[in-house]
């Protein structure tokens, strides 16, 4: 098989296995039998599809293994087995095993390495316990692996007429002349099963005078008890006479349910009724073709006669011919309409090579810069038509940009779902009872962020379970419910995405933190620390407040690495806690890494970009706002106190020569404050000039400036100049921190007061 084909199989199997995992974890949460059965159906479907695909590639180990899993699922569906914790765990382990098998299949050769083989056997053994006897059941199951159709076990009781196949035979005139003997068919059928009843139909025999003794006018109606056969096999019996004779095989009544089930299990593709019936085994291909040609004949007749007659649908003809029961046809019709509906709703997705997507996004970045450059040059020419054209072009480029970046956005729900399993396992290991609640699963993140945030999140969740939630005993003693809750939430907030992990556990004690920090030499005695600063200490290297360090979270290595990981993504992490009540960790991440809408400003000689989605408004800095006190570092913004600082000062830049300030038309000293908002906090920054919106292609700062605070990246302006992107979160915090420490208005050390 081609490598590419195998790769596609592996990719699809991966998707299916992750669906299976979710379905398995959902089983835990379900309370009622209907949902559970639906869950089992989902699982069956998933494994069934994998089995089919593996079969195509001749991956027998996978086929065999999946088949056994399917069989157990069938038993559960039939009510012969119930779902319990152990079983779910077994299924989870088999899912993992399958994953390994799929990986293995990508390499050459069918031979499993000893570990895999051992795992395979041990899992199969566990399953066989559920299936009845130890090796017998497995073998029987394996032997049934030929048609992919659901086959009944041999335990079915007989005697009831509806357990029998009803076969209707009308032999053709030349049957005897051709050397065929009807009796031999009947005796052959007796080999396959037991012919319970035969009725010979002789009414086709003409009057004696016209009776040709060598022609065959006989018909038979048979009741055949043969539980382990299927339509195809029966049809094959009459292979040699099927051209001349009319043969109708109606499956036993008891098969109706299994046909209906098979129909429901069919993949979610658009199929015609005939194909659905063939796929579940209720019709053979031969029968379907016959019916279709009957339909065609009727259609011809109707068209020829010009009558307003409706051509009967395939299902109706089939029932009329007594080759399938109405109930099965109904199920097929239902399936068809369900699929139609689902396809209407379903999102069409397509797999894309990640590298190609990356290079597309890079190219779009170049496009943005290039078009900005062109626009600049165009403006200099002053041709209005050209300017309009450029304006249109820029708008289109912006749309392309948004679409391309949108391609990289993935819902965080997938990542969140992985944690269900973690929670399950860790709860079991620690003996705690913990529920994981997830909200905001549809929130979208850039793909690279999702990949990188997985590990830090995992660690934080583990931490919450391990250290946050107390044991059931403790909780009850504290008057809480025995079951602890961990919440995972994700949402957008002013240009960032926020992920919150909160628990209703014991919370963090500030005193304990301070003691520990003093102990580790992280802080000094009598150091004044805000609550925020105290909690921030958790993220320092070598810190751990847990009395016993468990294997799960590891020694204090955790939190500081988590913080570093998040910060390397240009994110921030913050912790809030209340003793006895619980803790909440909030992670903030930028929405995109690549291209943002920027607001360009000039400070001194240099140009800076402020991410537009954090900009609230721009106001003039003048006396009225100051309230007359020019030395104040806050303004009255419509009744709100807005702290501000001069960017120039914050950047430690040299004072600007006064000439530049005076280029302002009205010859007044006008400074502008850019008001920004971040994480619910507002601050203002004084800049020299506002230059308007700009599509900002982010060029990362690189290792050399990795510790630089206040600048989060660079970009290239249309003019070719390099502009720096201001790290607003950092700057806002600085403004607020400095404001907190002194309520006395600062004295400006530079002469920025303009009294013109």
């Amino acid at each position, binding site marked *: 098989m081609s490598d590419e084909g195998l790769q596609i199989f592996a990719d699809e199997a991966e998707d299916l296995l992750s669906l299976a995992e979710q379905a398995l974890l959902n089983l835990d949460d379900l309370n009622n039998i209907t949902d559970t059965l639906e869950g089992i159906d989902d699982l069956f479907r998933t494994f069934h599809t994998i089995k089919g695909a593996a079969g195509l590639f001749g991956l027998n180990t996978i086929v065999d293994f999946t088949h056994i899993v399917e069989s157990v699922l069938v038993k559960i569906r039939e009510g012969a087995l119930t779902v319990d914790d152990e079983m779910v765990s077994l299924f989870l382990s088999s899912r993992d095993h399958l994953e390994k098998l799929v990986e293995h299949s990508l390499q050459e050769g069918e031979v499993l390495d000893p570990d895999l083989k051992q795992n395979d056997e041990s899992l199969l053994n566990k399953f066989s316990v559920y299936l009845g006897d130890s090796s017998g059941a497995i073998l029987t199951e394996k032997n049934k692996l030929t048609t992919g159709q659901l086959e009944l076990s041999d335990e079915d009781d007989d005697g009831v007429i509806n357990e029998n196949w009803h076969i209707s035979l009308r032999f053709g005139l030349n049957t005897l002349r051709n050397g065929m003997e009807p009796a031999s068919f009947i005796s052959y059928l007796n080999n396959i099963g037991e012919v319970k009843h035969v009725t010979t139909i002789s009414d086709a025999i003409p009057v004696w005078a016209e009776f040709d003794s060598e022609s065959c006018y006989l018909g038979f109606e048979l009741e055949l008890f043969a539980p382990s056969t299927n339509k195809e096999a029966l049809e094959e019996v009459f292979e040699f006479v099927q051209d001349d004779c009319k043969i109708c095989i109606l499956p036993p009544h008891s098969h109706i349910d299994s046909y209906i089930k098979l129909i429901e299990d069919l993949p979610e593709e658009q199929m015609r009724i005939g194909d659905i019936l063939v796929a579940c085994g209720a019709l053979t291909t031969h029968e379907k073709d016959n019916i279709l040609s009957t339909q065609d004949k009727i259609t011809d007749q109707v068209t020829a006669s010009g009558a307003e007659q409706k051509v009967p649908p395939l299902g109706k003809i089939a029932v009329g011919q007594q080759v399938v029961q109405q109930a099965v046809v109904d199920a097929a019709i239902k399936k068809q309409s369900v699929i139609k509906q689902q396809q209407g709703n379903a999102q069409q997705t397509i797999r894309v090579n990640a590298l190609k997507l990356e290079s597309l996004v890079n190219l779009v970045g170049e496009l943005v810069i290039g078009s900005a450059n062109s626009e600049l040059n165009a403006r200099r020419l002053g041709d209005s038509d050209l300017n309009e054209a450029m304006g249109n072009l820029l708008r289109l480029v912006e749309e392309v940009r948004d679409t391309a970046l949108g391609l990289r956005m993935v819902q965080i729900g997938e990542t969140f779902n992985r944690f269900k399993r973690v929670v399950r396992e860790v709860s079991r290991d620690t003996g705690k009872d913990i529920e994981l609640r997830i909200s905001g699963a549809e929130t979208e993140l850039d793909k690279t962020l999702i990949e990188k945030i997985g590990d830090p999140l995992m660690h934080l969740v583990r931490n919450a379970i391990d250290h946050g939630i107390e044991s059931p005993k403790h909780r009850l003693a504290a008057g809480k419910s025995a079951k602890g809750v961990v919440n995972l939430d994700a949402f957008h907030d002013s240009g960032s995405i926020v992920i919150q992990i909160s628990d209703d556990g014991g919370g963090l004690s500030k005193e304990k933190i301070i003691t520990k920090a003093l102990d580790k030499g992280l802080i000094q005695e009598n150091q004044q620390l805000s609550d925020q600063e105290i909690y921030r200490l958790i993220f320092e290297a070598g810190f751990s407040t847990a009395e016993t360090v468990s294997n799960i979270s590891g020694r204090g290595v955790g939190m500081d690495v988590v913080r570093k990981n998040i910060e390397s993504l240009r994110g921030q992490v913050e912790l809030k806690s209340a003793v006895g009540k619980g803790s909440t960790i909030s992670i903030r991440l930028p929405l995109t890494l690549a291209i943002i809408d920027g607001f360009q400003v000039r400070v001194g000689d*240099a140009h800076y970009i402020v991410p537009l989605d954090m900009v609230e408004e721009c106001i003039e800095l003048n006396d009225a706002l100051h309230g007359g006190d020019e030395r104040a570092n806050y303004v009255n913004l419509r009744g709100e106190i807005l702290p501000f600082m001069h960017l120039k000062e914050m950047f*430690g830049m040299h004072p600007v020569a006064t000439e530049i300030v005076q280029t302002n038309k009205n010859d007044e000293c006008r400074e502008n404050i850019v008001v920004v908002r971040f994480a619910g906090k507002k601050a203002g920054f004084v800049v020299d000039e506002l230059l308007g919106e700009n599509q900002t292609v982010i060029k990362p700062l690189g*290792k*050399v400036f990795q510790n630089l605070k206040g600048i989060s990246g*660079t970009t290239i302006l249309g003019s070719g100049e390099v502009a720096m992107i201001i790290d607003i979160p950092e700057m806002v915090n*600085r403004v607020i921190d*400095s404001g907190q420490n002194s309520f006395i208005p600062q004295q400006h050390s530079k002469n920025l007061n303009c009294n013109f």
Partner: protein
Amino acid sequence: MVQQLENDKGLDASFSAEVAQYLTFILGNKVYGLDILNIKEIIEYGEVTEVPMTPDFVSGLINIRDSVLPVIDLSKRFTGESSRHTKRTSIIILDVKNEDLSIELGVTVDMVNEVLDINTNEIEPAPALGNNIQTNFIKGMAKVDGALLILMDIKNVLSVDEISQVGSVQGAAS
């Protein structure tokens, strides 16, 4: 403008020693040499955007074919004296390896000279010269045509770890 790296008449290496090629350039009044292995290109001194809150020896950032690279004032870093920007001032773009990553950056020099072949056995260890020059920046010295050539150790001069401490220098706020 990109200047082509020109090869001088190659001095034939004596059988056992290695010959390396060094780009020579001027900082202040001394001549220095850099192993060309790390050199990507040489450009004219162009628009360098200052980056706030960085040490003096960090000149800023430059745009080269839509890539943003940091520029170090080599004179300032090496001798403590700022580079004088004249027409001849150039920026040498280097590829410096730091652990597994390679980092591209530029260094400003007063003037670029020729490329010389220097035999390893011609290199003498650096003496302890005046206190302006940090000895671990120097790989060694070589005498070429009677003149003294100071060979720089690029890795130490531009130890990225050191430079990346740039962020820790806070601006003069409040």
